[in-house]
C-alpha cells in the first residue's frame, strides 16, 4: 500500500482546516475522479515532512511562513501557490461573562483581564498567536498584557482555556469561536491591525499525481467557496469556473 501518491491526490493540510476541507473534498470527488487523502497536522510538521520527501501533492498551510519555508527550498511549484483562504481573529470570553469591550486603539485590555490571563495560541510560533500579538501591539495594548498571556499549543487549546473559564478572555479565530456555544465573541480585531490572515495552498515539487491540478482547481470552485464560507472562512482567491 505504499503507492498512495500514485493512486490518489494526497493533501497535507493544517489541522484547523479539517472541517471545511473534509466537506470540500467530498464535494470535489466528482470533479477530481476520486477523494483526496488528507493528512491533517501542524503546518510545521507537514512542512518538514515534505522537506524529507513525504508523498504529498498539495500543501495547505495555516500561514505564509511555512509555505515560504518550502518555496525557499524549491519544494513547491511556485506557479501553483495561491492565497486561498482568509480568517479573522476575535476576542472571546466565557458565555456567562459580563465583560464588554470595544476593540480600538488604547482599549484597556489589562483592566478587563484583572487577575486573569489572556489565552492565546503561542505568540511566536502559532499563526493565530502571531496575528493576535501584532494586533495588540498596533493597538498599544501588548505591553500591558504581555505578562498576563497564557500561550497555548494551538488555537483550540486557547479556546478551551476560555470555554472552561480558566481564562476570562482569549484571542482565537472567528471560525473557532463561532462554533463553540460556551464562549461569546466580545469583539473582532480590525483587519488593519495585523498582517493578513492567509491560508496558502500549493502543489509540491515532487507531486506526480495527474489529478492534482484538478483538485487545486476544485478548491477554487464556487461550491468550494460556499463550503469554506459556511465554516467561517473568507475566500481570498478568485473563483475559477470550469
Amino acid at each position, binding site marked *: 500500500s505504499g503507492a*498512495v501518491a500514485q493512486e490518489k491526490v494526497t493533501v497535507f493540510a493544517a*489541522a484547523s482546516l479539517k*472541517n471545511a476541507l473534509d466537506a470540500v473534498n467530498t464535494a470535489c470527488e466528482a470533479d477530481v475522479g476520486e477523494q483526496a*487523502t488528507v493528512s491533517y*497536522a501542524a503546518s510545521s510538521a507537514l512542512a*518538514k515532512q515534505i522537506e*524529507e520527501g*513525504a508523498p504529498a501533492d498539495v500543501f495547505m498551510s495555516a500561514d505564509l511562513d511555512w509555505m515560504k519555508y518550502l518555496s525557499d527550498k524549491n519544494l513547491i511549484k511556485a506557479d501553483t501557490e495561491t492565497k486561498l483562504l482568509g480568517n479573522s481573529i476575535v476576542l472571546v470570553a466565557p458565555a456567562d461573562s459580563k465583560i464588554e469591550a470595544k476593540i480600538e486603539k488604547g482599549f484597556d485590555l489589562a483592566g478587563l483581564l484583572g487577575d486573569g490571563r489572556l489565552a492565546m495560541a503561542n505568540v511566536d510560533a502559532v499563526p493565530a498567536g502571531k496575528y493576535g500579538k501584532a494586533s495588540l501591539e498596533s493597538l498599544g495594548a501588548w505591553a500591558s498584557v504581555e505578562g498576563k498571556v497564557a500561550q497555548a499549543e494551538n488555537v483550540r487549546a486557547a479556546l478551551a482555556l476560555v470555554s472552561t473559564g480558566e481564562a476570562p478572555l482569549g484571542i482565537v479565530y472567528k471560525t473557532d469561536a463561532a462554533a463553540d456555544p460556551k464562549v461569546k465573541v466580545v469583539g473582532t480585531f480590525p483587519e488593519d491591525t495585523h498582517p493578513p490572515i492567509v491560508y496558502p495552498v500549493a502543489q509540491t515539487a515532487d507531486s506526480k499525481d495527474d489529478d492534482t491540478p484538478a483538485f487545486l482547481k476544485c478548491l477554487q470552485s464556487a461550491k468550494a467557496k460556499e463550503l469554506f464560507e459556511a465554516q467561517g472562512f473568507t475566500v481570498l482567491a478568485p473563483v475559477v469556473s470550469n
Partner: protein
Amino acid sequence: MQWLLDLTPDEWNAVRLSIRVATVAMVFSLPPGILIALLLARGKFWGKSVLNGLVHLPLILPPVVTGYLLLITFGKRGPVGAFLDQYFGIVFSFRWTGAALACGVMAFPLMVRAIRLSVEAVDRRLEAAAGTLGANPLWVFGTITLPLILPGIIAGMILCFAKAMGEFGATITFVSNIPGETQTLPSAIYTFTQVPGGDEGALRLTIISIIIAMAALVASEVLARRVGKRLDVE
C-alpha cells in the same frame, strides 16, 4: 452503543491501524527490549551508561523532537532510511510501519525498564543450578531466565501496547496523519480536537481507544496471574 460504533470508514481504518501498529510495535520491540534489558542488568562493558541514556532518550525528549529525529534518520532521505530502503526494501516513511517504529521507540524505555527490573530480581543461583544439569547458557536463558522474567515481559508488553495506543506526537511528526496509512487513533483524535465541533468525535474515538487498551490490560493481568500461579509459592 450505536453512537459509539457509528464510525466513518476512515475512523474504522484508524481503529484497525492502531491495533495493528500497537501490536507490531509491541512484538517487534520485545526481542531487542529483552536483549538490552539483559545487557543493562548484567553486562559490564564500556559505554553501558551511553546505551542506558540512549534507551531513555525518547522519554526525555519532547515527542515532537523524537519524531523529527526519526524523520531525518529513517525518512526516505535519512541515512538509515535510505540504507534500509536500498538494501532491504524496508520503508518506514509515511507507512504504517513507520508509525509502529515511532510507537516502538517511544515505548522502548518503558519496556526495557520493566524487563530489566525482572532480570535483576532473578535468583542467579537457579541459573547456576541449571548449568550444572547440563544446560548451556542459551538453554539456561530459555528455560530458567525467560520464564522467571515473564512478569516483567508481560508488564513491558502491556506498557508498550498502551503507550502505542496513546502515542501521537512522534508518530504524527514522523509519518504524518494519512488516513488508512498512518492515521492511528490518537492522530485521529488529535485532528478532531483541532476543529470546532470535533469534541464528540474525539470523545467517541477516545472511548474506543480506552476500551481496546483496557481489554489488553485485563488480558495482561490474567496472563500475569496465570504466570504467577505457575510459581505456586506459599
